[in-house]
């Protein structure tokens, strides 16, 4: 039997138990933190540097800007000052006056400002920029100074030219010739005729030669001056013609200006204007001559009219004075005579019409009848007249209606004439008369009647006319005119009393009391009127006007009495008895009107 044996099966490993480490440290990853910190440090440093850089830059820029601004302000001041300085001093300075040129002053100011800057870089930058500023301003200032130099020279020359133009236009012949030569140049003979003439260059060409102005400018100035002189020549002629007032001179000017040989330098449009002006002047002068002739004629007519009017008024006044004072020798001796009237007519002192009227008046031939409406109409026309011509037109209606066959008595005529005078002279009394006349017309209804034309009854119209006439006569009484206000109050009282008493004329209350014993109008009798007429005639205290008015009132009362129906014969129904008509009216109910009841109360019988 086989004996088993054992041999080791496992071989010893060749491994050592150690391995090669594959782990490796990543330097980049490990140093990332430090590199991050390095980045941070760089960022911190960069930011700090940037801040410092920015701050420094800003500070320097700020300082530079301040300095530049200060220098610019200084430059502006210098520039402004240079405008008031002599141009030569601005450019070159004036050592004798201790004045420096603009450039020197600008450099001084630059250095003053630069010395105040501590930072070298800022100072350097400022010097550079300030120099540029100064160069720019210097060019501008020098250009301005040169322009002013030229302007001054041009102004001097133009002023000289103006003086020459003045001589050419306003001077005498020699002055004009010299001025024209110096203005526009030419040849002038000096000394003996054998010597060559002296050539003169015109002032504008001289300016161009000196480069003060361009040739084109010189040409324009020369041409304009020639045109100005031509226009001035024409104006001188025009003014002369105007002053002379002679249309022939203006006509000659028209003919001259139409001829191109005259005023040869005048522009065509100026010539057209001049022609129009000359023609207009000629027409104006002709018109003026006609107007002067017409005016002279009108003045003569007006003077004649005034003369006639004044003389007529004086004659009328003397006639009235003589009539009112028959015992006064002086008044009688002053009475106009027919011879005086004839002389006045011969010397054109009065009109033919008034001469006839005056003769009538001298011979005590007054108007046969009195027309109150005509007189009131003339009075009203004078009262409402706005111009002297309107007053004259109203007054002209007086004289033809005086004297024999006339309707305006002497007294009324004189009153109207005096009122017209007062109106023309705008006296206070006349204004008062106008004012209260207007008030009177308004309150009596005359104004409304005149405007509307509506009928108010014949008796009311009569009362209105009588009120106006009475007011006029009282206020324009030649002997003793009543103040307008008092006349107005008196007439108004009479007007309303007349309306109440149903009479169509005005009568003063004292008059009725004295002569009619306060009777009612229905009780007035013819005997009362006769007694009153006798009493008035014998009353020496009354003026002629008062007597006239009272006689007229008595005439009106007489008409009233005569207009009454005769009393019924005995046995017939008497006044106040009831009639069939009354019965019918009472039955119908229409008779009990207000006016009837007033009548019943007023006339109970």
């Amino acid at each position: 039997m086989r004996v088993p044996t054992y041999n080791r099966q496992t071989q010893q490993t060749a491994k050592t138990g150690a391995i090669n480490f594959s782990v490796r440290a990543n330097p980049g990853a490990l140093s990332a933190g430090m590199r991050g910190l390095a980045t941070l440090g760089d960022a911190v440093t960069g930011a700090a540097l940037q801040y410092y850089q920015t701050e420094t830059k800003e500070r320097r820029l700020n300082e530079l800007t301040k300095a530049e601004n200060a220098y610019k302000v200084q430059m502006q001041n210098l520039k402004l000052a240079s405008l008031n300085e002599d141009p030569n001093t601005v450019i070159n300075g004036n050592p004798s006056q201790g004045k420096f040129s603009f450039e020197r002053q600008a450099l001084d100011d630059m250095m003053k400002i630069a010395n105040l800057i501590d930072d070298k870089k800022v100072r350097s930058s400022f010097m550079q920029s300030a120099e540029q500023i100064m160069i720019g301003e210097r060019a501008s200032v020098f250009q301005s100074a040169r322009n002013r130099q030229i302007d001054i020279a041009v102004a001097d020359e133009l002023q000289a030219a103006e003086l020459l133009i003045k001589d050419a236009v306003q001077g005498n012949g020699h002055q004009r010739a010299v001025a024209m030569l110096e203005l526009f140049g030419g040849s002038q003979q000096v000394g003996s005729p054998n010597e060559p003439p002296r050539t003169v260059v015109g002032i504008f060409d001289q300016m161009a030669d000196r480069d003060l102005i361009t040739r084109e400018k010189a040409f324009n100035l020369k041409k304009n001056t020639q045109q100005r002189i031509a226009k001035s020549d024409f104006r001188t002629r025009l003014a002369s013609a105007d002053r002379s007032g002679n249309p022939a001179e203006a006509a000659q000017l028209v003919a001259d200006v139409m001829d191109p040989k005259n005023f040869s330098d005048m522009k065509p449009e100026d010539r057209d204007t001049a022609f129009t002006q000359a023609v207009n002047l000629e027409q104006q002068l002709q018109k003026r001559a006609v107007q002067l002739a017409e005016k002279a004629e009108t003045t003569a007519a007006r003077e004649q009219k005034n003369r006639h009017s004044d003389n007529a008024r004086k004659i009328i006044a003397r006639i009235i004075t003589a009539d009112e004072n028959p015992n006064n020798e002086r008044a009688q001796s002053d009475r106009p005579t027919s011879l005086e009237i004839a002389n006045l007519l011969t010397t054109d002192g009065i009109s033919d019409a008034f001469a006839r009227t005056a003769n009538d008046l001298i011979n005590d031939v007054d108007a046969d009848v009195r027309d109150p409406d005509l007189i009131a109409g003339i009075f009203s026309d004078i009262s409402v007249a706005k111009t002297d011509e309107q007053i004259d037109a109203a007054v002209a209606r007086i004289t033809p209606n005086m004297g024999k066959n006339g309707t305006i008595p002497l007294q009324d005529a004189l009153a109207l004439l005096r009122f017209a005078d007062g109106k023309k002279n705008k006296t206070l009394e006349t204004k008062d008369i106008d004012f209260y006349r207007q008030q009177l017309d308004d309150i009596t209804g005359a104004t409304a009647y005149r405007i509307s034309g509506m009928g108010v009854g014949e008796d009311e119209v009569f009362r209105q006319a009588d009120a106006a006439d009475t007011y006029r006569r009282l206020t324009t009484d030649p002997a003793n005119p009543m103040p307008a206000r008092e006349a107005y109050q008196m007439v108004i009282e009479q007007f309303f009393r007349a309306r109440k008493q149903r009479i169509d004329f005005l009568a003063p209350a004292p008059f009725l009391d004295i002569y009619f014993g306060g009777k009612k109008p229905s009780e007035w009798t013819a005997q009362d009127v006769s007694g009153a007429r006798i009493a008035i005639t014998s009353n020496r205290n009354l003026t002629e006007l008062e007597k006239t008015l009272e006689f007229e009132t008595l005439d009106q009362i007489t008409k009233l009495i005569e207009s009454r129906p005769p009393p019924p014969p005995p046995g017939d129904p008497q006044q106040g008895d009831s009639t069939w008509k009354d019965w019918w009216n009472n039955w119908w109910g229409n008779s009990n009107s207000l006016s009837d009841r007033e009548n019943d109360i007023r006339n109970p019988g």
Partner: protein
Amino acid sequence: MGFLFELQAGKQEQAAYNYNTDINERNADVSEQQGEQLVFQEEQNIVDFRKQFDDLQAATSQAFRYNGWIASEGTPLKVALANAQEADEEIATRRYNAKVGRAELNEQATQERMQGQLNRMYGRAANIRGKARAAASLIQTASSFASV
């Protein structure tokens, strides 16, 4: 605002490195455990081997006795001793190999740990870098604001 993202990026990078470190730590532990397991397994194998070897020795003694030999002396004894010598060497070799394997696994664990340490260092560096970048961004932003 960029500085906030830089800061967060650094933190995330560190977190990634830390994560890798944890994996390395685990791998190291696994390797060590494998090493121990290897030794332990080899000891179990040795125990089995010893049983098998005892069976072999008994068979050898039986064979000798079958052949008429006294198994406890003379050649059978030498053979038995030689077998025993071989078996001991076998066991020693197996133990040696197991220890070498464990040492190798330990080495791997060490390597993983070293990698973990590196990752942790990388994470810290990344964190620092993120903070630095964030600060730099912040400073740049502030500088930009200041220069406006």
